[in-house]
């Protein structure tokens, strides 16, 4: 009964033209959507106060700020606790109080990285000849992840790492595909940048080198292997070399970041002695814990489908063998994180699995771009099941968004990464503004308090203030009007020194909080107190 049917016809050519238009403008559209989502997410988390929930986010911002402001500003403030690139990228904006205290100085790096990573997922899929639908779906999988959206709204380093690593692997794959010299230069450059963000990058450099080496040795012979590998590692390894050099120059020990008192290893040793590092030496538990983190960060179904995707990709004879080889680099974060847990270089707590808290669960997001790429490939490969795959993925994502399910927010808010320092910082804000005098505090233990107090960085004497720090520890009553420290805890460097100093008797405890106590110099001794920066420019 034709009268009961309304029909709308479109010429195949017109459809092809529309598709071509999208193909031509896809990059701009993808970047526009990623940018809009990025800005919206930042505003959302800024307004609900979660943007700075991670203590580490506040510490990152303080490190950047100390480079431009403080009793001893300068590049040396970049320190050795974390690799320097995220803080270096904050320097152009961190001078602004708004950019510092809103967290935007760090978030803007994460947001740009989010857009870049999303776009790289698109480009990567194009590189392995996935159609427009698969490419857009891949970007969607990466973008529609509340954990990624939260992390890109904070001053954390994850997104910058993802951007640099994904760029590195993208250009590495390009080189494996076309063998253009420029691609391997770009690959080593971006991998080098990733080595300056987190140690995950160092492992990627290792994996990439093995892949480049194996490929050239098998395909081209020893001479080409030797030349290519040296060429690749020269640029790729320069970041690592500079980091050793930095540690040697600033801390007089090239391995200071490994063995120093603020190193991750030191932290892990303390955890181990307290029996809180069960993953060390236990490969099964390490794998299980990381798997939980990975699945929690990507909603279980998506990594499962991603696994199917990677298996099909690695077995796909239509994709050039060398390209498939390069794709193995996408799995480097998985191997690195499990290895780091087994070797005791990393710590990760999953509530209910190891302990009753969250810690570093965000590490599970390290495979987000890889999974997105595998998912994009999967819908291309299993075309007839496309609707089922997209439907089930959307189904799960609907519940993730509807219930605001972001394990990274729990990690930041209720896990070990979080401390409610507002009581201490509020006290400082209320009782030190308008009064003269420095505050002696260990930034290694209480950086979040420094940030949250809203006070000028120049008010604080901390480990990075050179002569002020040394003088403050030797004669606290001459330099510090207030001391913030965790009493009876020798891990707090201020307590360790000051509590054994006779000058400490001149202080009285004015407030005691769960995370720190506040001491104030008795008014009788204020006359001998230094309240001005007197050391001038220190080296």
């Amino acid at each position, binding site marked *: *009964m034709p009268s*009961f*049917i*309304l*029909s*709308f*016809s*479109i*010429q*195949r*050519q017109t*459809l092809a033209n529309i598709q071509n238009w999208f193909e031509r403008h896809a990059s701009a559209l993808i970047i526009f959507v990623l940018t809009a989502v990025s800005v919206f997410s930042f505003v959302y988390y800024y307004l609900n106060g979660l943007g700075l929930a991670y203590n580490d986010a506040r510490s990152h911002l303080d490190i950047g700020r100390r480079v431009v402001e403080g009793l001893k500003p300068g590049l040396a403030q970049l320190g050795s606790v974390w690799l320097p690139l995220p803080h270096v990228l904050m320097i152009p904006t961190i001078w602004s109080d708004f950019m510092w205290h809103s967290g935007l100085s760090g978030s803007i790096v994460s947001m740009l990285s989010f857009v870049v990573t999303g776009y790289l997922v698109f480009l990567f899929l194009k590189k392995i000849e996935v159609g427009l639908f698969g490419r857009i779906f891949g970007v969607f999988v990466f973008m529609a992840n509340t954990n990624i959206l939260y992390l890109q709204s904070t001053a954390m380093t994850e997104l910058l790492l993802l951007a640099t690593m994904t760029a590195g692997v993208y250009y590495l794959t390009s080189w494996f595909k076309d063998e253009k010299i420029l691609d391997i230069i770009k690959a080593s450059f971006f991998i080098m940048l990733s080595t300056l963000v987190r140690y995950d990058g160092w492992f990627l450099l290792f994996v990439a080198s093995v892949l480049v080496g194996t490929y050239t040795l098998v395909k081209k012979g020893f001479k080409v292997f030797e030349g290519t590998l040296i060429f690749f590692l020269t640029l790729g390894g320069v970041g690592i070399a500079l980091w050793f050099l930095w540690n040697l120059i600033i801390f007089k020990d090239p391995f200071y970041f490994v063995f120093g008192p603020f190193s991750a290893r030191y932290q892990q040793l303390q955890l181990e002695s307290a029996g809180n590092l069960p993953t060390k030496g236990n490969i099964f538990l390490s794998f299980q814990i990381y*798997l*939980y983190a990975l*699945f*929690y960060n990507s*909603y*279980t*179904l998506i990594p499962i489908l991603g696994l199917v995707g990677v298996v099909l990709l690695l077995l796909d004879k239509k994709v050039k063998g060398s390209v498939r080889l390069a794709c193995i680099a996408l799995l480097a974060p998985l191997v690195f994180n499990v290895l780091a847990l087994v070797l005791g270089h990393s710590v990760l707590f999953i509530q209910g699995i190891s302990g009753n808290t969250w810690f570093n669960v965000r590490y599970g997001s390290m495979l987000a771009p890889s999974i997105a790429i595998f998912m994009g490939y999967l819908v291309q490969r299993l075309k*007839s*099941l496309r*609707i*089922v795959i997209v*439907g*089930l993925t959307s*189904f*799960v994502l609907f*519940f*993730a968004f*509807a*219930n605001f*399910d972001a*394990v990274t927010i729990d990690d930041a808010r209720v896990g070990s990464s979080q401390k409610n320092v507002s009581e201490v910082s509020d006290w400082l804000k209320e009782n030190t503004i308008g009064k003269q005098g420095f505050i002696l505090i260990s930034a290694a233990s209480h950086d979040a308090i420094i940030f949250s107090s809203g006070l000028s960085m120049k008010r604080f004497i901390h480990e990075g203030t050179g002569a002020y720090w040394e003088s403050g520890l030797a004669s606290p009553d001459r330099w510090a009007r207030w001391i913030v420290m965790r009493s009876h805890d020798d891990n707090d460097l201020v307590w360790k020194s000051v509590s054994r100093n006779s000058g400490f008797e001149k202080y009285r405890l004015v407030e005691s909080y769960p995370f720190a106590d506040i001491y104030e110099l008795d008014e009788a001794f204020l006359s001998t107190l230094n309240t001005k920066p007197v050391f001038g420019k220190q080296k």
Partner: protein
Amino acid sequence: MKKIIVNFLFLAFCAFVLILSLRGIGGNPTYETLNSSDLKEEGPLELSPERGRFALTYSIIEDKSFQFSLPVAKFVIPDLGYQDGRYVSLFDPGVSLLTIPGYIIGKYFDASQVGSFAIIGLFAIANALLVRSIAKKLGANPIASSLAALIFLFGTPAFAYAVTLYQHNVTVFLMLLSVYLLLKWKGILPLFFVWFLVVGSLIVDYPNFFLFLPIGLYALGRVFPIEDIGNTIRLNIKILGLVSFVTILIPVSLFLWVHKVSYGNPLQLAGNVRSVKDFDENGNPLFREDILRRAGQEVVETPDSGDKTSIGFFKTRNMLSSLYIHLISNERGVLWFTPVILVGIFGISYLYKKRPGFTSLLLALLGSNVFLYAMWGDFWGGWAFGSRYLIPAYAVMSIFLAIALTEFKRKIFFLIIFLVLTTYSVSVNTLGALTTNRVPPKVEAVALEKVSGRKEHYTYLRNWEFLMANKSKSFIYQTFANDYVTAPQYYYIVSCSIIFVMSGQIAYMYLKARKES
């Protein structure tokens, strides 16, 4: 004629086994007997989902009310709702409404509870018929289709929920009937029924909204078909297809009416009502916070103490643990309770090659069932036998199983493995059906051991223990057979009958296939 005889024998066998297994005790429950342990813990209404649904049927018939009187409310605890000063059901009302005829007929024979339960048994038989018909329509061998249907009915936990008062077999019926209608008839006509069934499923179980989404989307494709004609792509909108939506008015009206008379608000969902946890000495309701206060504990706000949201029950973070429990664990896992259903995996690719569109629909149903309930907060399904939430998935897998059996019907090695798995799965699930669904999750069993001071099983060993204590909840056994056989002997008779019939079918299928080749 042969077809009629075969169909009759199939139906008769299914009905015979279900009658032997149907749980119940004689007599019509009254206010006085409702709260006795013979009917509750030790009887057929052993768990709150059965009690909540039976209580609503009871109230509608006996009290002419959708609200509960105090004795009925006490019977329903701990899954009791409280709205505007009245006790109401926390369960979706569909099953209670559907079992009304069974209750009335049963009451006439002085067995109202048995009559109510028998309605679910009828749905289970219909499900077996539908699995068989769908599989045949998709090209499966008739014997393979019958075998797959029997596997679904007696070789999966669907069996244990076909002899009591749960929603799962009704949900499966609505799902399979929708699929069958879409498969059997092309065009718009079946849509008039499909929309009715899809929306009607919400009255049976609210999560069916998500479970039935693939069917809705597939059916929608018939309203807006896209044609590829040479150089032109044509999108059609079938006006009659749009008109077919009118049938949803029937279930929607029923839904709104039932909720209006139950909760005073047509849009109030049962699961979101505030729940009563106990009663005080004066018969007044005690809520969670009252219980905590009485125990001297701090009252912490939870979803239960405030507004509950429908989608708040589904959390992606449950998925990993939940999938383990549903698929692998010995508490509820498919691997332990119905490994035979996994043979269906082999059928997926064969069906996909023949009917990619329909296979996509079946896979989408499978996926939405598994992943929806993988997100569900209580992924054990409370005290339960096997993974009851995956019963729709077992039905879909049975269809794939029929295809796999068709493809491998000449492979003796495959059939031997299939027979072994069938024997195991039927034995386990008959054990569940004839005994109890009161199997605690491991976490509760461990806590229970501290109280009881004895080993508390959390696998089907608990059912075995129950059976070895010479107990069965089968109505026939308790009313007639216990004078002649022990409970274990009764179990052996029922399970061996099923295995014997299925073994015969497997052998017949193999011999026939060899003869044909």
